[in-house]
């Protein structure tokens, strides 16, 4: 059975790019254009992996990541961040939110700063899913 991957990105070109790369190697890809839509889709049909952008309308990837990692039923889904926002900023923002009283959250499985080469993306997804027993 095909593994399900959800891509959350407000840039339709990115969703198309990721879908093309990953569908070619046998995965089923669903797109979401912002954090709110992504969370709603994830709750409706739990994916095997999430590829997450950070700077999105309605809800950023930073907030969405916290919601995922503090939800008992979702926190085990591996997350690959694919964003123009730097990893340093992501980690600092999570620290800041933890300082403001939020729960500490683990680092994402992989953090890729855009742009990404198709082969690297495919390889990363394969590795992350194989670590999770896929």
């Amino acid at each position, binding site marked *: 059975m095909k593994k399900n991957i959800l891509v959350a990105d407000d840039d339709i070109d990115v969703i198309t790019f990721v879908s093309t790369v990953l569908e070619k190697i046998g995965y089923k890809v669903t797109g979401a254009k*912002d954090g709110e839509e992504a969370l709603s889709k994830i709750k409706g049909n739990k994916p095997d992996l999430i590829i997450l952008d*950070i*700077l*999105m*309308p*309605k*809800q*950023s990837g*930073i*907030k969405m990541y916290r919601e995922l990692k503090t939800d008992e039923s979702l926190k085990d889904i591996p997350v690959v961040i694919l964003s*123009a*926002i*730097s990893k340093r*900023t*992501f980690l*600092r*923002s999570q620290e*800041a*939110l933890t*300082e*403001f009283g939020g729960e500490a959250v683990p680092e994402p499985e992989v953090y890729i700063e855009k742009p990404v080469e198709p082969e690297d993306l495919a390889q990363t997804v394969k590795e992350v899913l194989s670590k999770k027993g896929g």
Partner: protein
Amino acid sequence: MKIRKLLFVTDFEELWFDALQSLMDLRKVGLEHVIFLHVIEREKVAMRRGVGYLKDEEVKLREMTNVRFVDWAESLFETGMECGAYILVGSPVPKVLSVANEEKADLIVTGAHKDKETIEILRRAPIPVLVHKYGIKKSERPFERPIFVTDWSPPCERALEYLISLNNIVSKAIVIHAIPEKSIKGLNRIEIQKMQKENKRRLEEVCDTLSSEGISSEFHLYMGEVTEQIKKAISEHNASMIVAGTTGKGAWRARWLGSVSHELVQESELPILLVPKVG
């Protein structure tokens, strides 16, 4: 009435990141989410005879905007602020209103140099609009010493409530009312003095309300041509911002959006926060 989410509209002519940073005092009163919006005007990329749609130009403009927004977002994210961004192609006013609605923003911040668009946003926005003048006068703390202009209408009462919700960041509010010149036409001296007395009493009441909410304030009464009097009050009392109410319809709107606010948006060096009536 809380400002939780702010929509920051920029065309990179007047409002840059320093202008946004000057509004970060709003964090003390609940701001937690900033949305950046840049609208690429359709004319810049529209179909042209012989060349068609300028797709390369659109890509270039999007990337130029994106690099700024990513930079701004990184700065805000690192402080624990939530951020989002829109880069859209189209007509600015409808795009601003639609993003404000979609994002359920509590405040729109826009510049003033594109006068017609700004006035149109003020006319149509159902939420408060701050016309920031940061490119003209760089005030690091615009909320510090606001001048609250009232004509005693219900929208002004709402603007007062809004001002009260900013209590943690307002050092002193200046409350003014300008008796319009035409309203004293034909009145004798005693009648004019009675009118002054009554307006002073009402101004005192506003100051008492502000004081009970922990905002220090003072009031001043003016009489004459309203816009001119407001401009005098601004310079006399070293104000940092203008706060006023505006209705969607009727005389106040005509007066404010037809002349007073229009003139102030054009001429004042201060940011102007206009609060519309409910609904």
